[in-house]
């Protein structure tokens, strides 16, 4: 059950039902006891009524003055019965008409006392189960003290009677049965009400979440518009705010991706257009062999530039795959730098540049040789390409324990501080200038990606003196 709504409905319904069922069960037992107690109290009251009707005369005669027309339960066919016995004589004094009619009698309960009635189970006059109540009662004397003329036979004062009452359980059982059904119906109704309440409560509670989901489903590229409302429940507000922040980042990433794709398409289309126009024109207007030779050379140049561009694009695309296949070996960056400077000697001379390398003879670190060489080559190559003619490039390599700190600085009079943050964007060029054959505008983007893979930070800054500095350093030493 993966649905929050289903879980909430089930758990809420179960909880409400359990609470209601517990309440109903407790109420049932409380009411049952109350009814039983009430039944017993009623029996005691009946017993007292019978006791009041028992008369002991001064001469020792005992009889029961019970009016069956009032206490109809004791009449013929009634479901009540009583028996009054002389305790001393163990003789029957009187019994109810209901017993007489049924030709039955009742035996008192053993252990009856004069202090309180005792209860038991027996048979009603109708033969069904009944509550038996027995109590022993002494004759109530006292009026002879106020009337001294009264003569009381000896032993009469000590007259003790045992009164036993039988009251049919049927009314109690009927009421208990009704109580049971009522409780059951309340429990069923509670279950249905609990389910409905759980359903509607859950629906109401989850409405903001449903709205959030609906809004999320409507999010479409490329704009990632329609932000999530933040005026909902306080529990969802942080989620909405985080999602909105995520949307902004997604939109930014989408813009960067679209720009990258558009730029990549643009950069690929241009050399292809050159190739096609060059060959179209050459085929349409056949020229002399020496001119054809120029066409072929141009085609070759374009193919080299295209290869370089595609390699750079693939490098960016495969960055993640490269991270998984690093070959960490002991490498010597100062030696690499000397090789790179040597490889670029022609370009350095062509631009009239001076390159000052400040680095120890050897410094070994663990890194991927290919990626590190690519980074250093890009950084040095960029400086050579963009430094003004006749200017000086400084390469400062600081050796520390197992880590690297490399600074490239060169004058950049045409660069603005606002340009620095865009330098790492693929294809970004100052003034939208087209790349030359060696620089597709991807070098710094690629270097940044490779540096990240190797655990380096790559940062750029422009000093007030318009000196462009780019720093590569091991991430642990970053401050």
């Amino acid at each position, binding site marked *: 059950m993966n649905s929050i709504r289903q879980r909430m409905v089930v758990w809420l319904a179960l909880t409400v039902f359990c609470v209601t069922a517990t309440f109903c069960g407790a109420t049932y037992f409380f009411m049952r006891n109350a009814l039983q107690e009430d039944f017993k109290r009623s029996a005691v009251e009946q017993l007292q009524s019978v006791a009041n009707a028992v008369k002991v005369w001064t001469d020792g005669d005992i009889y029961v003055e019970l009016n069956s027309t009032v206490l109809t339960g004791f009449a013929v066919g009634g479901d009540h019965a009583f028996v009054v016995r002389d305790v001393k004589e163990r003789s029957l004094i009187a019994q109810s008409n209901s017993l007489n009619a049924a030709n039955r009698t009742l035996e008192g309960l053993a252990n009856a006392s004069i202090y309180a009635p005792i209860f038991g189970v027996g048979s009603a006059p109708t033969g069904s189960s009944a509550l038996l109540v027995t109590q022993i009662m002494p004759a109530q004397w006292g009026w002879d003290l106020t009337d001294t003329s009264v003569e009381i036979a000896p032993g009469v004062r000590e007259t003790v009677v045992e009164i036993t009452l039988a009251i049919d359980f049927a009314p109690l059982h009927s009421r208990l049965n009704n109580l049971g059904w009522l409780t059951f119906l309340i429990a069923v109704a509670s279950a249905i009400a609990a389910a409905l309440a759980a359903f509607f409560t859950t629906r109401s509670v989850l409405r903001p979440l449903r709205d959030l989901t609906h809004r999320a489903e409507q999010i479409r590229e490329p704009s990632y518009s329609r932000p999530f409302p933040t005026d909902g429940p306080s529990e969802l507000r942080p989620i909405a705010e985080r999602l909105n922040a995520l949307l902004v980042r997604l939109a930014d990433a989408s813009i960067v991706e679209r720009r990258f794709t558009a730029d990549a*398409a643009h950069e690929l289309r241009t050399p292809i*257009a*050159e190739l096609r126009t*060059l060959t*179209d*024109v050459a085929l349409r*207007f056949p020229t002399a062999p020496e001119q054809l030779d120029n066409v072929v050379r141009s085609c070759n140049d374009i193919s080299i530039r295209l290869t370089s561009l595609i390699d750079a694009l693939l490098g960016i695309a495969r960055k993640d795959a490269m991270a998984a296949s690093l070959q960490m070996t002991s490498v010597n960056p100062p030696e690499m730098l000397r090789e790179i400077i040597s490889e670029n000697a022609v370009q350095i001379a062509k631009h009239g540049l001076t390159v000052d390398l400040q680095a120890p003879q050897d410094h070994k670190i663990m890194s991927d040789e290919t990626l590190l060489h690519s980074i250093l080559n890009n950084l040095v190559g960029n400086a050579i390409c963009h430094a003004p003619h006749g200017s000086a490039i400084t390469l400062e390599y600081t050796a520390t324990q197992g880590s690297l700190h490399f600074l490239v600085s060169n004058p950049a009079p045409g660069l603005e501080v606002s340009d620095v943050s865009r330098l790492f964007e693929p294809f970004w060029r100052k003034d*939208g*200038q087209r790349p030359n054959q060696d620089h597709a505008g991807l070098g710094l983007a690629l270097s940044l990606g490779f540096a990240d893979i190797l655990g380096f930070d790559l940062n750029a800054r422009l000093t007030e003196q318009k000196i462009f500095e780019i720093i590569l350093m091991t991430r642990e030493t970053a401050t």
Partner: protein
Amino acid sequence: MKILIIEDSDILRESLSHGLRKTGYLVDASRDGEDGFWRTEQDIYDAIVLDLGLPKLDGMQILERMRAAGNQTPVLVLTARDTINDRVTGLRAGADDYLVKPFAFDELQARLEALLRRSNGVACNSVQVSGLTVNLTARSVTVDDAPITLSRREYALLELLALKVGTVVSRPDIEAKIYDEYVEPNSNVVDAAVSILRKAIDHSGETSRIETVRGQGYRLRQS
């Protein structure tokens, strides 16, 4: 017809210039936006082939400045940006046509021809004037159904007059449109070119198809 190409890719610019010259156009070329815009102010062109991504001054800015200055020269935008938004933006900025890189040279040529025809109020690809037919696509000429051969410059002169048939074309206009920047124009050269053209398209003893309007220029007679 004189075309200005503003394109920063050396190979593309030179290939287009070469191809269009071979086709018979006079071609000037610029490699950046500033120089290109300067040329549009200094010279009169029949059409401009304009790249959008240019250094110094963006192609879109050139278009806007040209139109703001009242320059109505037809502009064919040439760019690698191919989204609908890019096309709409380019056309709304004043471009007359839009061609996405890479493209076939033939398509560029056909679009240029269509632009030139439209800008001169000609709907079809040929102009017929009393037995003289100038096919603007094939760049061929027939007189009374007989094909004649003209040099590149003579054809350019005839095409210029044919596209403005019945209208006087001034000598400076002719100089600007049939001579490129490397030729020093002078009126004798124009007169000589008109004279050669007359010999090629006129019948001896009949009134010339090209009328000289004294002090103004030349006009191709309608009938």
